[in-house]
Every structure is written in C-alpha cells, then in structure tokens.
C-alpha cells in the first residue's frame, strides 16, 4: 500500500490535469495548417493576377511567345483553384502542414467547439463573403483608389481571420490580423508613399505574405513553448 502525503497528491492531480490540457492545446492547434492553406491560396491568386496583367500587356504589344506563356500560367492557376476545392487538396495541405507543424512529434485531438464560437465563425465568414465582391467591384469601377486597397481590405480581412481564430480556438492565428492591420496602418500613415508606383498593387499581396509568415512562426513558437512547458511539468511533478 502506497501512502502519498496530502499535499503531494493534490499537486500530482493538478499537474496531471494540466499535462492533459496542454497536450489537448497542442493537438487542436491548427494555425500552421491555416497558414499553409492561406500561403498556397495567396501564391495562386497573386500569380494569376500578375499573369493576367502580363498577358494583357503582351497581347497589346503583339508579342505571341510571352502572351502564350502567360496564358499557360493562367491555365495552371485555374486548375490549381479548382484543385483547391477538392478533398485531395485538403489531404495535401494536411500532409504539408503535418510535416511543418509536427516539431516534437505528432498528436491528434478532436476540437470541441461551443455553439457561440461556431456562430462567430459563420458571422465573420458571411461578412467576408459579402465584402470581397463589393471591394473588387468598387476597385474595378475605380471608385476606390489603388492606394487604399490595403487599408480597406484590412477592414474585412482582419476581423475575418480574428473571428476564425476565435471559432477554431487557435490563438496563434490572431497574429495574422495583427500583422495585416500593422501593414495597413503603415500604409495609411504614409510609410509606403515613397515607394515606386509599381509597388502599390503588390502592397496587399506583400501584407498577406508577411501575415502568413508571421502566423506560421507564431504557430511554431507556440507549439515549442507548450512542449517546453509540458516537459518542465513532467520533470517537476509526479513524484509521490
């Protein structure tokens, strides 16, 4: 018969529950998956944008070879967008993200989501789906100047990703709206005003890229920090 002291047994149970909670946190962390998905989507959309622009210029200049190459790139991007709607893409993202995000080993947990969290996710998704066509439409009609593209997009992109972060319980995803908002604030404050004119259309894509990279780094740092906490807890406790 083993007789633990009252204090030690209380600590053991607290430590054990804490260990399980931390493991659950790591298992439900999906910010790396989200960042990989957003990064791939951004790369496809940016390539499509520049290929379309380049194809138009090449056709106007009467250069068949560059025009042909651009049309080929547009076709590849279109196939990629269609592929992004399939389950094979989801499996691919899962595989890539698992490789990136399985520092310290693989763990899997079922994410529990409260009703209000799902409500937040639905609300921000609807807001995003409504805002994108309005923004694109107003930009195409040249109602919105290109200089305001980044700050205006920040008004719906940042709340959307912040909402998804709340809905999916992924605190590292919060880094995305923070970075994106900071880039938009820098643009409004005029920090990018001195940059050449060709830079303006790229501003939004670069802000997205910076946000994706910072989210990836935040996800990795959070995972490593949680693993460190678990190791410390494991070494410190469980001595009966």
């Amino acid at each position, binding site marked *: 018969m083993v007789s633990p002291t009252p204090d030690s047994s209380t600590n053991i149970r607290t430590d054990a529950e804490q260990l399980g909670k931390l*493991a659950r946190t790591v298992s439900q962390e999906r910010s790396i998956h989200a960042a990989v998905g957003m990064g791939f989507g951004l790369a496809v959309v940016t390539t499509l944008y520049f290929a379309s622009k380049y194809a138009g210029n090449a056709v106007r200049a009467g250069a068949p070879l560059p025009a042909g190459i651009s049309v080929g790139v547009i076709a590849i991007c279109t196939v990629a967008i269609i592929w992004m709607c399939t389950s094979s893409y989801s499996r691919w993202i899962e595989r890539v993200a698992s490789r990136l995000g399985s520092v310290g080993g693989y763990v899997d947990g079922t994410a529990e989501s409260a009703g209000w969290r799902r409500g937040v996710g639905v609300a921000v998704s609807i807001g995003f789906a409504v805002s994108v066509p309005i923004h694109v439409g107003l930009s195409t009609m040249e109602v919105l100047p290109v200089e305001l593209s980044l700050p205006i997009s920040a008004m719906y992109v940042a709340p959307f990703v912040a909402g998804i972060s709340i809905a999916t319980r992924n605190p590292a995803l919060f880094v995305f709206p923070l970075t994106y908002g900071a880039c938009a604030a820098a643009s409004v404050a005029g920090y990018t005003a001195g940059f050449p004119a060709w830079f303006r259309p790229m501003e939004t894509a670069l802000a997205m890229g910076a946000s994706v990279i910072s989210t990836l780094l935040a996800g990795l740092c959070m995972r490593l920090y949680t693993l460190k906490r678990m190791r410390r807890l494991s070494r410190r406790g469980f001595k009966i």
Partner: protein
Amino acid sequence: MGLTKMKASDPAPELDRVIHEPVRLRIMSLLAGVDTADFAFLRTALGLSKGNLSVHAARLEVSGYIEITKTFEGKLPKTRYRMTQPGRRALERYWESLDAIRGALNGHE
C-alpha cells in the same frame, strides 16, 4: 469512495500499481487529453528516453489501458498510442482512490 463516508476503521483503498508508477502516470495523463499521440510526441513532451517510454508503454498496453498501433510511413516506422476506455476508467478510479487516501490522512491529522 466518498471522502466524508470513509471511517478510520475502513480499509484504505488500493492504488492501481500500474498507473501509480510516475512515468506511466505521466503517459496516461497526457493521453487522457488527446485522441492519439505518436512515440516522438510522448518522448518530447514528457522528456523520456526511448527505452523508458517503450517499456512503460508496453506495460500499460499489457494492462489494456492503452492501444499501441505500429505502421510504416514510407520506410519510417510510426508508433501511435491511444488511451482505451478501460484506461480512462482506471485513471478516474486512480484519482478517486488517491482522493480517498488524502481524505483519510487529513482526517487523522
């Protein structure tokens, strides 16, 4: 067993020896929070050596508390661990016994 119902004359509850070992308790506590975890994760998160983890996990498997699945991803072996329902119940009973003992000890002070 409720703490208040335990009398000084009552026999003290037995702790499950399989779970009571600190390394096995750590493994069980971690697995209680997740669906599955692989060998590398358990080793990193708990700061255990390969041999130590293998031996204790095998002991838990023999007792039916965890399930060990070995597969290959390409040429790399993958070992995954999952806590079973009897394992979850045993862990719960273990905490209840520990609480009962603590209650008894507090009662004697």
